[in-house]
């Protein structure tokens, strides 16, 4: 659809061979995202039905290429909308060329910060009202703190902190934990004046043990990664998280915890194939193990059934459950699941006879949920301090939410 050649060792003809071998093959999602055709390497990712492909003949850094492709998609989303499609691309061709030229030069990624790009690249002829002087702009594009522009003012200085956790669980059919971890992210929305210096602290075991503890619960964080605004050297030296934040929303850090996880839901499944694969009987018990002060929302429990299911007789105590053929599953939705509550669903599933019986692969039960004000890892924010020359006061709000990541129970 659109292509930009940064070097002249790969031509358009190479794109054709990619089209023939990958796009036309339509084997989406099974082939590796790096493919070599005729000594040319293709690295690709997808957005909707579009391929974003990088071509090279050199021994490039593939992680760098993918990170750039993801950034590019992110930038396009910011400019053309989350769900931008082929038409949006075609209608904004020159804009896209402009963005590609600005974010990549001769195969080397340049500044990809959307906020900064917006300062001088815009849709159509609309000019931003506060377009800065060129020299100020260039120092912004290339500056050490390229994620924040100078001279930002807010009437009220506020910081919103969201701690989002997603719990990954893989439970064997006998109930033993195969894999369990929490992936957390700290998202911030800052509305701060000037160039404030921030210091942020979690109940990280390593930090608090050093400070001789304050008697509260601490969490052992396996690993964390930070937004590029965080000073990594400082973190490595004494585990303090210091940074000058971008203005607006950004992800400060990601972390991973594997020990002492409070699983929000326990699931006890009993799924039996009966009468020579003509029936399946299902009995699943779900227990909310978090405090009864809290509740979970958007709970969806997908219990897989064989493809040749003809009908399912379902009994459940609350929520709504029905057999959804397109998902090959009984989908049970509960809007509000109170803490400490317990619920059982039973189903008798009748199967259609098949001429060539194939064994059922028994995919795992999957859970989706959200539990506000709860962190499965036990992480909580200890402090956020904002220092600015002018010494203004900052309001801070903290929210916690735990979601299901890959929450699967084998049957």
């Amino acid at each position, binding site marked *: 659809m*659109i292509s930009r050649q940064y070097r*002249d*060792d790969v*031509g358009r*003809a190479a794109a054709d*061979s990619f089209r023939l071998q990958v796009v036309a093959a339509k084997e989406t*999602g*099974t*082939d590796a*995202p*790096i493919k070599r055709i*005729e*000594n040319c390497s293709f690295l690709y990712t997808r957005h909707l039905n579009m391929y974003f492909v990088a071509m090279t*003949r*050199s*021994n*490039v*850094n593939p*992680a*760098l290429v*993918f*990170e750039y492709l*993801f950034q590019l998609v992110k930038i396009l989303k910011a400019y053309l909308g989350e769900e931008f499609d082929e038409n949006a691309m075609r209608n904004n*061709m*020159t804009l896209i060329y*402009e963005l590609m*030229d600005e974010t990549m*030069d*001769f195969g*080397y990624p*340049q*500044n990809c910060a959307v906020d900064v790009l917006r300062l*001088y690249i815009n849709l159509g*002829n609309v000019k931003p009202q506060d377009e800065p002087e*060129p*020299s100020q*702009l*260039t*120092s912004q594009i*290339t*500056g*050490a703190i*390229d994620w924040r522009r100078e001279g930002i003012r807010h009437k009220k200085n506020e910081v919103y902190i969201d701690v989002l956790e997603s719990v*990954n669980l*893989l439970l064997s059919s006998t109930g033993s934990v195969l*894999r369990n971890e929490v992936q957390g992210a700290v998202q911030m929305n800052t509305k701060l004046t000037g160039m404030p210096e921030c210091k942020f602290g979690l109940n990280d075991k390593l930090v608090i043990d050093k400070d001789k503890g304050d008697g509260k619960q601490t969490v052992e964080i396996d*690993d*964390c*990664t*930070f937004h*590029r605004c965080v000073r*990594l*050297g400082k*973190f*490595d030296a004494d585990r303090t998280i210091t940074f000058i934040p971008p203005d607006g929303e950004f*992800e400060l850090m*990601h972390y*991973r915890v594997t020990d002492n996880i409070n699983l929000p839901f326990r699931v006890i499944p009993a799924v039996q194939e009966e009468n020579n694969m003509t029936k399946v009987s299902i009995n699943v018990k779900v227990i909310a193990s978090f405090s009864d002060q809290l509740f979970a929302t958007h709970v969806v429990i997908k219990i897989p059934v064989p493809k040749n299911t003809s009908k399912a007789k379902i009994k459940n105590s609350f929520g709504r459950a029905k057999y959804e053929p397109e998902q090959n599953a009984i989908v049970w939705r509960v809007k509000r699941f109170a803490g400490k509550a317990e619920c059982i669903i039973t189903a008798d599933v009748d199967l259609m006879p098949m001429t060539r019986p194939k064994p059922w*692969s028994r995919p795992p039960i999957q859970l989706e949920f959200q539990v506000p004000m709860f962190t499965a890892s036990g992480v909580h924010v200890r402090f956020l301090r904002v220092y600015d020359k002018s010494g203004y006061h900052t309001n801070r709000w903290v929210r916690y939410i735990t979601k299901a990541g890959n929450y699967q129970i*084998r049957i």
Partner: protein
Amino acid sequence: MHELRMELHSTDRAVKVDAVKKVIASMTVGKDVSMLFTDVLNCVQTGNIELKKLVYLYLINYSKTQPELTLLAVNTFVKDASDSNPLIRALAVRTMGCIRVDRITEYLCDPLSRALRDEDPYVRKTAAVCVAKLYDIAPDLVEERGFIEILHDLISDSNPSVVANGVAALSEIAESSGKDVMRITASVLQKLLAALNECTEWGQVFILDSLAKYTPADGREAEGIIERVTPRLQHANSAVVMSAVKVILSYMELMGSQNSDAIRALTRKLAPPLVTLLNSEPEIQYVALRNINLIVQKRPNILENEIKVFFCKYNDPIYVKMEKLEIIIKLVSEKNIDQVLLELKEYATEVDVDFVRKAVSAIGRCAVKLERAAERCIAVLLELIQTKVNYVVQEAVIVIKDVFRRYPNRYESIIATLCDNLDTLDEPLAKASMIWIIGEYAERIDNADELLETFLETFEEEDPAVQLQLLTATVKCFLKNPEDTQDMVQRVLDMATEESDNPDLRDRGFIYWRLLSTDPDAAKIVVLGDKPVIEDDTFKLEPALLNILIGQIATLSSIYHKPPDSFVVRRRAGLPTEEDDEDDEEDDDDEYDEEVRDSGAGGVDLLDMGGMSVNDHKQFTPTAPMTRVAGPEKAGGIEVFSGFVQEGGKIFMELEFSNVSAGQDISTFAIQLNKNAFGLSPANQQVIFQPPISPGSSGTTRVEMAMNPAMQVPTPNGQNVNPQIQVAIKNMHNNGVFYFAVNLNFECLFSADGEMEKTAFIEAWKSIDDRHELYATVSDLPADSTSIEDVQQKFAAYNIFFIARRPVPNAEGQEVVYFSMKSVHGMTFFAELTFKRGVNAAKVCLKTEATSYGGLAKSALESLLRGD
């Protein structure tokens, strides 16, 4: 077009901008809008930066085909490079670097020199990259003008983006020149490490990658650098993390064993970030997993306790699952085998066939690896065989054969179960494995002879691998139980030696026959002798290769598990690209390597074929385009080049052998071709080099080819023909056999009777549906392919017949030429070539009823035009 031209000359800026946008839109969809060159160029005289960007974009695209006109823009570039707006200065420098016209580069140097010292960092960072661009076109200029020194100064620039691009440019120049332009000294090193903290994320990657190429003076320095690099493991950008891992792993080697505490500490630090990478997007996971595969081979203890993170999630993409399985097998140990077996058993019930097979095979590999767990593994395999799922059973049989070879005479109790599943086997590999088991354990299977008998019924239809195995198994059976199997062995030997045209099978048949008839005891020793026990390291990389690859972590090399020089076509900057393109034997891509040929300067005799140059003026003799098809490591010390050519109406396969390390003079070989899409087979199987090739020298010979319909593999309708021809060569000096594959250059099959009447041609051309048209554009044509007369002559030498030529109406300087050709099989092809005066490119359009072969005919024309 006219309207567009008017709009481009409009005085209204908005109309102008819109018009240029329309031009760019047409350019993007592949329409030729080069005729508007001067009109678009006119628009550049504007202070409007948006319009400027668009015009420059257009310029970059057409500068290649319109070098003369591009020169008209030079003034604008030079002027813009000293504009008061830094954005415009940078834009001019950036664009000039992208225009690869020699004469532009002369004008580029002064502005570039100024830009590198510009007060504005945005201009400096753009200029830094531009030096790398210039080096690619004119390396001498870069050195003359001292640009490399200026890049060095940029490493200590106050601006992080400038540092990043400066480092990137220097590493690229170092890479392409092979010179150490980076010159990392103690002070440069300190600067780089300091910049690491300040730099953009991309800059950090560039710095880390160039640090990885540096070898610290001693262990202490290595440790010092590692200490500065480890904080990068916490970066959110996975490229930064991977490059940091590379630096640390490479430097760890230098720290020496006396420093085991520090190494242990580092090992602990490396695990968490690697695990974290597995929570990223699947593409990054894939990159990480391919690299982890190398890391666990080099330093197994880093992830020894993390096997659980490699367990597959149900909704992981298949390519991620496959890589995870590889790592599970590498990390499996006595401690975790029970858990792993449960996992693998689970995978074996999933839906994706390839994944299931790999899981089954993994169970066998665990058995081979862990002696104490072998029994448990086999139990699981047996359980899986009971599921009767066809591909599960076949894969299990294949891997059980390996288990038997690892632990001879230990698990034969399961043979009965295997025998129950004979009917399920329909794949060659599975059949061959089962037959091997039957032959090996014939004395413990009551009805071994009957079982073999059932396979023998279909002997002739079997795959060669199965035939070979059947032959051996029957002989084994006969040696163990001569009374009942005499008939059978006789029949097999007959079939193998007389009815088969497979040289391997015949040879093996004859050897057995002779052994059995002259010395049955010797036969026993040979056939029933102890085989070497297989080891579990079958799947590991050679230590030398592994060490190279560890230094290549976070590059494509680490994805392919191949050293970079095996797939990167090296280009010497500034010169017309020289190809040392090695044909990759494992690469079964069945298309011609168009792009690679594209860059070859026309007619240069790359392989030094001595006296076969096609540049001899206007005297075109067809030559075989020789490609390297096998190296000494595969072909018993011989390097083989091959290609096809037609001469005097006969088709020849040309072979050039270099005696690299065969250890003696070589002269006599036998050749055999596998069935192929063209029905080619050697007219005579003997290949003789006269005089013999002594070690260190090389020789050429031709093998005449005959057309044999029985040797032709039909190509299914709608599919493209595979041009590959598989060849077996037997070295008669030592009876060694080696194999290679060579792509047929289709023009050698055009027959001399392909000439056509003009009217017949027109009729045939019209009768073919336009949907079957094939297109190609061949650019960068060598000088002797731009004149239609020359092309006509050259084509005639290849039996590509000229029909007619005519100028294109309304397009000045354009002409189309028609050609026809006919293959020796009687397929006809019609081609239309479009040339434009002063442009060294041509468009090819090809039509044929024989659609499967159309692509080949088109490629043949393209490569002839390019003159390779």
